[in-house]
Each structure stands twice: as structure tokens, then as C-alpha cells.
């Protein structure tokens, strides 16, 4: 199926999100769409999928103009989409979510066995492990992303739109997904692939279109170098490496000793974790998602009560303190699932900028919010972090994914910190902004703040870390230097200690 967009325009009020965009997706082609945060990629895809009505332009399928008044019609025309913000019903099971809208039935009821089988078949093809009966709300984001992909694949679309499907996948899963994309392409499926990871673009894309400020600014071939692609996207040269000096010797600020977490069912999630972080040092925690990183950050933030062990920050015990007290003690937290834990979608950008600080000076006095201060603060931060938003009063939900992430980071980095704990800090953020965020994190370190970065991106880990801890099955396989080779890190992520190459249980 050949898909053509001609001069598609989409406005939100007076803001032009897509400005006469032309795009041709040939049958059996993987077409990568690159662009900064807020460039208008998701908006364009939502127009194509019938979620937004275009203000101008035409969509043609195999040369015939079509008009979609809703996703149902787009789906009927053979278009499938994996949305950047998951479109899953939290209280439904995986199987129910996957079949919703095209349910197999036996008699009056849904044939759940068939639905489960469908999930198993696709996940087997994909090399993903997903329990069809798990409730979606209980799954970590990485798994929810798989469910979204399974859902889209289950419909055998002829044109598949993938809006940042790899943002929360592990490198292995990403490789699997790219394998699937190649298979689908062989079968004649056309794919529109949106990502901020240039390596992926180079690997699978056939053509690349770059969008900036709602306009197509150029096309490129996958043979283009990362630097070329990055500068095309951002409009300036981007330094893909992080410049930083070696960490200075300083005293230990955070001490975690024997931290152990056992859940209700007796499953050990954290297994005697011991480490410390010095002032002015970045400890990066690497590992395949689901090996206890989430639980570790939650335990550090007081969101989960550890079974045993202690966490001391500058000598103060944090175990047993409430989340409020921990935040007030100066711990900045960037949660891994920003839309669930990091923001309130219906609040304005300005309100989200001060979410965890409105209780006290300077943002409130005696219970009344200091609106002027909040607005002023938001204006400065929006400018500094280059958040693309129409206004600081716009609801958070109207921001593009990467810009939402920037708001969360801006909030946490804008106050005096005694510890910065950031999970996937650059998830969904464009290369230009990654550069900036990395600089900010390093600057925070240089101010003497101990920093913990949890990331599944090896690039990010090696770029930022002063020391790297690798987690596997709830324990630290080892803590190594930043110059450790990728292959050694890879081995450690599989549970093998490189100094002692014997597989762990």
C-alpha cells in the first residue's frame, strides 16, 4: 500500500503544529521520521490515523484520496498505530486490551482462550514474554510498551505507524523489534518509524524525513552519519559526547547498606544491596529493565518500605521517612514513568513545574499560592530547558512527550538538591535536548551533589557515569569504572561477573 500525505496542515488554535507537510511512504518501506521534541511528528501521525482532523491537505492511499473521520476508518483502510502515550485500558488484562475492538467471540461472549492464544503467538514471534492474563495497570512501562506493540501487530496492518516504540525497550528488545520490522517489510508492510535514537534509524530505515517546527526540513539516507542527522534535526551541530572532568575526591554522601526488599509473596526484589555515592559523583545503575531498578528507586524515595537494610544521606537515616520528608530533605526524583508518576496531565505547565514544592516558600505563603512567583519560575525554566509549549498555562497533556519529560527534569533540577535520583532521564528526548540535559546533570554533579542515574541505555550510562553498577535479579553484579567495555557490561547485565566468569544462579 502506498501512502501519500500532501500539504497536511494541523493547527491548535493559532499554533501551527504541522505546516503543509508532504510525505510519501512506499510499499514495503521503512520510513523514519526524525525531529526535535515538539516538531509535530506525533501530531502528523494522529492526523493520519484519524484522531485529529486536518486543517488542510490530503491523504492518499494508492493514489486515491481518502478521508478519515475517526481511527475506525483508518484501521479499516489498513493503518495501524503504536501510540507514544499508551492507549491501554489499565483495568483490563493484556489479552482483553489486545483484542479490544476486534474481539473473537464464541456465542455471546468473548473467546478469551483465543485472545490469550493470539497474545502468546505474537509474543512468541516477537521473542517477548508477556502474560496474557496480567492486569495492564500492574505491569511496568517496558512491558506495557510490548503490549502496545502486540496490539498493533495483532491487526495485520498494511501501514504500521510506530511512534517511539523503542523509548522504553531494552537494547535486546529493540533488536527484536527491528527484526520484526524487517520481516514485516519483506511481507510488504510499510512502516513509519519515529524514534530519537539515531542508531536505530541508521540500522533499519530506508528513507528518512526530518521535521522541524512543523515543517519538513529535509530528507536523508540511512548512510548519513549520526552527526549529520542530529544537526539536520536540531539545526545546529550537536556534540554527541558528554564533556566532563573526572570526579573530584570527596566524602561519601549516600550510603546504602544491605538493602533488602521482599514482597508479599516472598519474592526477593532487592537482595542485600550495598553501595555508596560520594558528593560530586555520578553512579549509573545499568541493567536490563525489570531487574530491581524500579524497586531500588522506589525504596530510596520511601515509596516502598524495605524489608531490611539502611539508607543514610549525609548521616540521616531515610528508611522510615515519608516521601514528603525525603523530598524535603533535598532528594530530587525523576520517575521512570513520567506520565503516571511525574506529572499531572490536566495541570498547567507552570503548576507541574512546582508540583512537589508548592507547600512552602517561595511558591506559597500561609497556604495561598504565590501565583506570580510560580509563573516567573515557570517562564525561566521553560526558557532554560527549551520546553516547546504555547504558554506556561497550557495543560501538560498538550505538550509533546519529550517536552513533558523536560518539564519534569526542570522541576527537579531547579532546587537545591542533596541527592539527584533520575530514572531514564532522557527517555523520549531529542538529541539536542539530551546534550543539554546531560550537561545539566554533570553541572549538578560538579556542584557537589551525589547523583544516581538509572538507565537501560548503555550509551547514556557510559557517557555520564563516574562508576557503573550493574543490576541483575535484584542484586548488584558489580560496580565498575566508566571505561569498562560494552561487552563486559553486556555480560554483567546477563548476570556474569567479568572478574569471575561463572554464571550466577
Amino acid at each position, binding site marked *: 500500500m502506498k501512502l501519500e500525505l500532501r500539504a497536511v496542515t494541523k493547527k491548535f488554535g493559532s499554533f501551527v503544529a504541522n505546516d503543509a507537510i508532504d510525505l510519501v511512504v512506499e510499499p514495503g518501506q521503512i520510513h523514519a521520521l526524525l525531529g526535535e521534541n515538539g516538531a509535530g511528528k506525533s501530531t502528523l501521525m494522529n492526523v493520519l490515523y484519524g484522531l485529529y482532523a486536518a486543517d488542510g491537505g490530503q491523504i492518499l492511499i494508492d493514489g486515491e484520496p481518502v478521508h478519515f473521520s475517526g481511527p*475506525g476508518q483508518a484501521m479499516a483502510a489498513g493503518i495501524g498505530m503504536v501510540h507514544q502515550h499508551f492507549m*491501554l485500558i489499565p483495568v483490563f488484562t493484556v489479552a482483553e486490551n489486545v483484542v479490544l475492538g476486534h474481539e473473537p467471540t464464541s456465542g455471546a461472549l468473548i473467546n478469551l482462550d483465543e485472545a490469550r492464544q493470539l497474545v502468546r503467538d505474537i509474543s512468541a514471534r516477537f521473542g517477548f514474554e508477556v502474560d496474557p492474563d496480567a492486569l495492564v495497570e500492574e505491569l511496568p512501562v517496558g512491558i506495557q510498551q510490548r503490549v502496545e506493540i502486540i496490539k498493533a501487530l495483532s491487526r495485520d496492518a498494511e501501514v504500521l505507524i510506530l511512534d517511539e516504540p523503542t523509548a522504553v525497550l531494552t537494547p535486546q528488545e529493540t533488536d527484536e523489534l527491528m527484526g520484526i520490522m524487517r520481516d514485516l517489510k519483506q511481507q510488504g508492510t510499510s512502516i513509519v518509524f519515529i524514534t530519537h535514537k539515531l542508531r536505530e534509524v541508521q540500522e533499519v530505515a530506508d528513507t528518512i524525513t526530518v521535521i522541524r517546527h512543523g515543517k519538513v526540513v529535509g530528507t536523508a539516507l540511512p548512510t548519513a552519519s549520526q552527526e549529520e542527522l542530529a544537526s539536520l534535526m536540531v539545526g545546529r551541530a550537536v556534540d554527541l559526547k558528554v564533556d566532563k572532568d573526572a570526579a573530584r575526591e570527596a566524602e561519601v554522601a549516600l550510603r546504602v547498606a544491605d538493602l*533488602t526488599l521482599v514482597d508479599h509473596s516472598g519474592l526477593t526484589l532487592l537482595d542485600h544491596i550495598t553501595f555508596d555515592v560520594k558528593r560530586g559523583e555520578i553512579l549509573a545503575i545499568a541493567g536490563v529493565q525489570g531487574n530491581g531498578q524500579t524497586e531500588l528507586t522506589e525504596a530510596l524515595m520511601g515509596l516502598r*518500605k*524495605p*524489608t531490611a537494610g539502611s539508607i543514610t544521606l549525609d548521616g540521616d537515616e531515610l528508611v522510615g521517612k515519608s516521601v514528603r520528608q525525603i523530598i524535603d530533605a533535598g532528594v530530587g526524583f525523576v520517575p521512570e514513568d513520567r506520565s503516571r508518576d511525574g506529572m499531572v496531565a490536566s495541570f498547567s505547565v507552570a503548576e507541574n513545574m512546582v508540583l512537589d514544592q508548592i507547600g512552602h516558600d517561595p511558591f506559597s505563603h500561609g497556604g495561598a499560592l504565590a501565583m506570580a512567583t510560580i509563573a516567573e519560575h515557570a517562564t525561566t525554566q521553560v526558557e532554560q530547558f527549551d520546553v516547546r509549549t504555547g504558554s506556561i498555562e497550557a495543560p501538560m497533556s498538550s505538550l509533546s512527550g519529550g517536552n513533558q519529560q523536560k518539564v519534569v527534569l526542570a522541576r527537579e533540577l531547579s532546587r537545591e538538591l542533596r541527592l539527584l535520583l533520575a530514572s531514564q532521564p532522557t527517555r523520549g528526548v531529542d538529541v539536542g535536548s539530551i546534550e543539554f540535559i546531560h550537561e545539566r546533570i554533570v553541572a549538578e554533579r560538579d556542584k557537589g551533589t551525589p547523583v544516581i542515574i538509572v538507565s537501560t541505555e548503555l550509551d547514556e550510562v557510559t557517557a555520564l557515569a563516574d562508576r557503573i553498577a550493574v543490576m541483575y535479579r535484584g*542484586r548488584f553484579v558489580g560496580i565498575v569504572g566508566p571505561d569498562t567495555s560494552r561487552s563486559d557490561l553486556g555480560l554483567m547485565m546477563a*548476570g*556474569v561477573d567479568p572478574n569471575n566468569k561463572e554464571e550466577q544462579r
Partner: protein
Amino acid sequence: MSAQTIELPAMDSKALAPINWKFPIIYGILAVISLVGFGLSVGGDVWSGISVNTGFSRIQFAVPSQVTALVCTVIEIGLGIWAWQLTAARKKTPVGLPLGFGFCFVVAFLVRAVAGSEQSLQVTGLLQGTLFLSVPLIFGAMAGCVCEHVGVINVAIEGQLLAGAFLAAVVGSLTLNPWLGLLAAPVAGALVGALLALFAVRYWVDHIIVGVVLNVLVTGFTSYLFSTVLSEHKDVFAVPTVLPTLPIPGLSLIPVLGPVLFNQNVLVYIMYAAVVVLQIMLYRSRWGLRMRACGEHPKAADTVGIKVNATRVRNTILGGAIAGLGGAFFTVANGLAFGKEMSAGRGYIALAAMILGGWSPRGAVAAALLFGFADNLQNALSVVGVGIPSQFMLMAPYLITIFAVAGFVGKVRPPAQEGQPYKG
């Protein structure tokens, strides 16, 4: 560091999620009330008369009040201790436990209530009355379930019941055929539902405000017609017609329960079927899955091609029809003419039953029966003329309700997007 296995220390339980002692504590308080209020407050030589109509014959007997109440209390204490142990061991308590506990508590209460009275406790009558008062509540709660799951808050149940009662009575009277009246009832309810859908879904008016306004509208409209047209032409518009009682062969012969459950008119049988069908369809059918998707995450439903607003409109009208049908119970099902404001706030209680029942048809039925029972108890006991202070008697049903609410609320969540317009 790799090969050595790390020994886990004995799990210290304080680190696990705190144990929720709410239930054992409630059981404890109730057992004390049962012991002091029912068991010890009556002399050893007092008897309680009990009368059961099995359907063939009336059985009269008496039990020693104190002994019976104490036996019940002992069972309650036993169940309470069991619940305590299960909670301490972090195990789930079986569903039968609260039911058994509640049963013993109610028996102790009733035995105490009729202790020493001339009149005996009419068990069959008590059950019949409970069902009778529950029918409109159950229909209303089913209507609430359907609407809330699709994302529309239906406060207009009251108006839908009343409209159903009105149209059923009028159509029944005009045609002298109660069956046609029964058919007309859901039409009236659906109309009110359609108005709710129009304003809530199409024009994004706050659902609760529309609902309340509709209730006032229906009350005013039917009262107006009642005092003008209906009162002036009683022989045309207010002739009572009644649906026949249809005993179900076989089932109606079951002792005690048969006459209560299966010697009813067709509306009650429709209710049984509606509850079962809804309970299954809501969670297992395509219709149920799609409509719940609209109530939980309408945008996600939209992206898989479900027309959210159309689904909401359709199901709001369906909900209205269910409540309207229930309204027929006030009139044609029992051979009564229409009376002003005859639904008397049942629609609101139905809504409460649905919430107490955790938005599931099954739970809503249990809650509606509880409300019906509590309501009926006052009537039943005032006939008996009881020995304990009447104020306490009047309080008892509400006590039961409060404990039930305290015990169950908070475990379930309403559909995430109920009451929110979908502007996609």
C-alpha cells in the same frame, strides 16, 4: 562474588505492608453488641415465637431467647477469632465468613427483638417484604451499573423509575392491559435516559446536575398530570391493572424460599434474568468490554475504532430503559394506580446500592437486598411490638448498613473516566 549464595535473614514482618485490622475489629464490636445487647439483656425464661410459612403449612414454634442469642454470639466470636487469625497470617478471609457472621448477628437481633412478645416473628413475611422493597432498588442499581461503566453518572435513576411507573400505569389503564403497561415502562425510562445522554454526552453538561434537573422535571411533570388529567378522569387514566402472579412449577414448591422467590409476577423474573445476564455480559462480552473501555479510557477506546460518544449514548438510553422497567413495579406489577412521587427517593438509594456493591451487578444486588431488608425490618418489628427501646430498633437497620459500608467501601474504584466528557 558470584557463586556464593546469599542467605536471606528471616523475613521480619514489620517491613511488609501493614496488616489491615478493620474487619476483625468490626467483628469484635458487633460481637460485643450481640452479647450485651441481645444475649444478656433478656431473662433466661423468655421465649421468642417464630412463624414460618413453608408454602404448604404454617409452622409456629418458640425458641428460648437468651440461649439462642448467646449461641449466635458464640458462633460470631468463633468466626471473629478465625478472621483475626487469618488476618494475622495475611490470608484472605473466605466470602462465607462475613455472610455467616452477618446471618448470626441478624438472627440474634431478631430473636431478641421479638423476645417475650405475643406476636411471633414472621420469617416468610420478612423475606417477602425484603424482596418486595428491593426490586425497584435492584432495577435502579442495574441501570446505574450500565451507565457508570460507560462513563456516564446516572443520578436520574429516580426520574427514570418514576417515569416508568407513570407510563406503565397510564398505558395499563388506557388499554386495560397490564402487559402493555409493562412494555411502556422502559420506553419512559429510555426517554429520560436519552435526555441525560443528550445533555451529558452531547453538550458536556455536568452529569450530576443534569440528573438532578431531570429528576425534578419528571417529578413535576408526572405530579402535574396526576393532579389534573389523572384525577379528573380516574375511570380512563387511573384504572389499576395488575400483572398476574405466575408461580414457577416445581421451583415454587421449595419450602420457604419457593413462595418467596418463585411465586412472583413476570417483572421479578425479568429482574433475576437481568442481573445474571448483566453480571456475565458486563465482564465477558464484546458489548461489556467495549462499554467499559469507554468508561475507563475513552481515548484508548477511540484508537481501536470504538465510537465513544455513540456507545455512551446507546448505553445511557439502555440504562434508562432498565430503570424505567423497574418503575413498573410500583404500579402495574402490584395492581396500584399511579401516585404522586411514588418512587420516594428509591432511585437515590439504588445509586447508593450500586456504589456500595462496588459497581458490579452482583454486589449491587447484595447491597440492594441489604437496604431492602433494613427498610423492611422497621415495618416487621413495629407489628411485633418489641421489648427493646423503639429508638434502638429504628437505629438497627442503619447500623447494619453503616458497618456494611465501612467494610466494603474503598476496595473498589469507580470507572476512571466517569462523568468526564470525551471531546476527541
